[in-house]
């Protein structure tokens, strides 16, 4: 009995619900005789595509700020860089690298200022982050309408103002990473390039955690007063965490875009932070503590559900697509809500 209880505590309520839900879905795929190999391939691809968004949460939690509700700041930088690379006509891996580098540079600057702002707003980072996200995304909408940088006909609307709402990457770097060294096990396709990128990201962050700065950031995030007493500049650590997180967002959108074959502009990035947040929470992270394993586990569980649910529900009922969409909304926000009520604050 005690063992079961300890196991439950180790898994946690929301993770348990998600695992049960996923198990039911998996059983159903077999029961309904669905194409499990195809689904597995899809799950793998989606894990790879979303990996950097979830990784982005890590440094932010580590430095003590909490979850990054303003992840779209980085995403916007990445999109801007990506559209520029299309404008310049860069293709293949080179195009992706260029977009990542440029996006990282831009987002580092943006993250720096965002971090500076957050240092003055301790305690309300999540709320402020959410609204900074919303307002910057809508400001960028005006930006896309007015930017003078673009002239390519594949980017601009044929008529009227501004750039198209989706920029297709066909002929540039559509699925370049997905297909890089991809191979098949049975009927399951392994997107090697994607996982290579994910692995590199994990390795980089893991290395950072083991470096002197990483250790100092961790210590400062866990206990700022302790950090101060041994001469760590907490504000700088928080800024650094924000910058890293924002950069991950920029790289993340480039990888995501090459996978789905297009950049979705305008209001599309607005809600991109929430699934990433839900994913790392599902993995077992809290607002105060997160590690690489939380990222990997959470990403796998969350994306598996997101991929399998529509397929299964489409088989079960005729309006299955809306059911899975609704399930997505409920799971994503339910997980975040649950984490919010678990803040070790006061209860009244």
């Amino acid at each position, binding site marked *: 009995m005690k063992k079961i209880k300890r196991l439950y505590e180790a898994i946690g309520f929301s993770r348990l619900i998600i695992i049960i839900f996923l198990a039911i879905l998996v059983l159903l795929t077999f029961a309904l005789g669905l194409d499990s190999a195809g689904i597995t391939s899809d799950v793998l691809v989606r894990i790879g595509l979303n990996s950097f968004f979830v990784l982005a949460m890590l440094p932010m939690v580590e430095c003590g700020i909490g979850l990054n509700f303003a992840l779209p700041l980085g995403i916007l930088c990445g999109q801007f860089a990506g559209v520029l690379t299309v404008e310049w006509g860069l293709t293949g891996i080179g195009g992706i690298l260029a977009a990542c580098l440029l996006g990282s540079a831009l987002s580092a600057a943006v993250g720096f200022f965002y971090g500076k702002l957050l240092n003055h707003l301790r305690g309300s980072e999540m709320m402020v982050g959410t609204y900074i996200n919303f307002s910057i995304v*809508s400001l960028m909408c005006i930006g896309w309408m007015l930017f003078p940088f673009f002239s390519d006909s594949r980017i601009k609307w044929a008529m009227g103002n501004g750039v198209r709402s989706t920029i297709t990457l066909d002929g540039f770097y559509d699925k370049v990473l997905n297909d890089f060294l991809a191979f098949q096990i049975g009927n399951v396709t392994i997107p090697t390039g994607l996982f290579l990128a994910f692995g590199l990201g994990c390795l980089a962050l893991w290395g950072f955690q083991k470096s002197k700065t990483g250790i100092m950031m961790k210590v400062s995030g866990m206990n700022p007063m302790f950090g101060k007493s041994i001469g760590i500049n907490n504000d700088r650590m928080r800024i650094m965490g924000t910058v890293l997180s924002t950069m991950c967002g920029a790289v993340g959108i480039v990888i995501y875009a090459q996978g789905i074959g297009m950049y979705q502009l305008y209001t599309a990035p607005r809600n991109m932070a929430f699934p990433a947040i839900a994913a790392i929470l599902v993995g077992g992270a809290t607002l105060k503590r997160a590690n690489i394993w939380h990222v990997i586990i959470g990403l796998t569980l969350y994306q598996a559900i997101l991929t399998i649910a529509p397929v299964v529900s489409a088989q079960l009922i005729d309006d299955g697509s809306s059911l899975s969409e609704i399930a997505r909304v409920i799971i994503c926000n339910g997980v975040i809500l649950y984490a919010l009520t678990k803040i070790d604050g006061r209860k009244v």
Partner: protein
Amino acid sequence: MKGTMTTRLKDNAVTILFAVLCIGSILCSGQPMSYIINETAARISRNAVLILSLILPVLCGMGLNFSIVVGAMAGEIALILITHWNVGGALGMLAAAVICILLGSLFGFAVGKLMNRAVGQEMITGIILGYFSIGLFDLMFLILLGRVIPFYDEELMLANGIGLKNTIAFHDDVKNYLDNIWRITLDWSLVYAAIGAVAVLLILTVRRKRNYGETFFQAATRCRRAAITAGILAAAAIIVWSIPALRLACQGTQVPMAVGIITALLCLLTTFLTRTKLGQDIRTTGHNMDVAIASGINVGRCRLFSIMFSTVLAALGQVIYLQNMGNMNTFSSHEQVGQYAIAALLVGGASIKKASIGHVFLGAALFHILFFTSPLAGNRLFGDAQIGEYFRVFVGYAVITVALVLYGLKQTAQKRRNEETKR
């Protein structure tokens, strides 16, 4: 004197900026005065109660209540039900109100309980809760209705008998019912409003005079807020009646008096509540929760009541709003309720910690003027209505962001000051 003037300007920077933006936008839009006044009056009347519902949680220190989305859903359920039962007219509205109060209290209770577990993070919890409840609403009325919940209505539901239609048109005795009971033109309604306000002022003054033994003039000046309201309304009436062009514009504007009276009554109820023992407890909680707990106030219950009241008002507000629209987008008309109401309240000069009825109306006017003129202005300036559209969305978000940031900065400064002055 100069110092207070600059702080005044600084404290109301958002409102002033908005007033300027509004005037600019009106001029750029090139619309006639009558159109502007007509639209403004219509939008204030249908949005006021929704915005009003935000006040109590602010006073209770819970910040801006993003979860009024839940209340709006309660209002929508009420409207769906009366459409299904085919009751309309006064009876239908009454039934809707009763359902609103019941469901609103129930939902509000649940929301409040949740908020009491997330002290200090109420706003972000409210936002996420809003999204979450939208998911639940969709699940309920798109998937379960007709499948699991036994319910059938050919008019409301999709052809296969499962889920509600995307748009629901209300019956004729519901559509604009409240608007049409009694409508008068704006020039006269201003006069009536002014007379009403003066009457309230007189009653208060006489009561005060009797209770406190003050002279008539003293008592009148003591009822400051009522006196200011009466003064503003009277001045507005005089201005409208003395400028022919303005009067002409006002004559073209119909004001739904029933909605106006309901709004006024709810405003009075809110004001009344803040002056009762309960209201004092709520304000104490909002000022300083530790002290409130130490002095024996049941903080949890105050917070719960504020949220419940807010949710009920939001439900009623959504009914007023939707009966004015005449139909509803079943799954999207509640999405942005919290967002717009909060932005409007902040534009009126409210903050995370303070809000009053004056902020509600000023904010409703300014925010909505910008809201409907900016696409027009965008069209004239850039030849593209889309830019104006994006602009108004941006402004809505930006207002809330600025309020949050300013409040956060102020709080940090306060904390620092407290630490330094503590003994």
